[in-house]
């Protein structure tokens, strides 16, 4: 069962320069919420941004990771007023 820390590390390792904040929503190790900030998201649609993150986990999404709620940001989204 993955921990939030493990999810965070895997996202950050797979998407260069990304920063992820991950919480376990239920404490059960299968429902997570992640906020991911990455320069790599620049120019991508939300769908594409989320696909990039889902892609880190492949078949685990819907399997051991029942749900991964995502919020994706680019560094410029954050600094925008």
């Amino acid at each position, binding site marked *: 069962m993955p921990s939030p820390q493990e999810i965070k590390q895997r996202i950050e390792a797979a998407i260069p320069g990304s920063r992820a904040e991950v919480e376990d929503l239920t404490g059960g190790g299968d429902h997570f919420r992640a906020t991911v900030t990455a320069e790599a998201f620049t120019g991508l649609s*939300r769908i594409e941004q989320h696909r990039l993150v*889902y892609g880190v986990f492949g078949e685990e*999404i*819907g399997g051991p990771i029942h*749900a991964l*709620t995502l919020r994706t940001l680019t560094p410029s989204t954050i600094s925008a007023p």
Partner: protein
Amino acid sequence: MSSPQFDPVPMAPTPGTGPAGAPPAPEAAGPAGSPVRDAIAEAIAEHRVILFMKGTPDAPACGFSARTVAVLQSLDTPFAAVDILPDPRIRQELSALSNWPTIPQLFVDGELVGGCDIVTEMYESGELEQVLG
């Protein structure tokens, strides 16, 4: 409140679902050109707004599906809904088709808009209303 806003689409091999009345798929249906995938593609093409979900709009079987239904209903959007639970192949083929791993999935004008997170985010920013408009 009284009239249902959704148009339930039977995705199980119910006679008369598709124009050709696709026969039930054998267990060993291949990944490409499977009747289930064809039925999904057809449903997406035929309904301007269609939600693939767990359960039905009246009885959602998952919190994420429930939230997405609530968003659509709050915008008074008529939408078709497909329950993916009765047949595991629906989810399998849908995800293969859309390149999207989770349920629910909302399609508008044949395009995947997103799952619960994106739909909610777009609702809050007002973008969803524009897309549905």
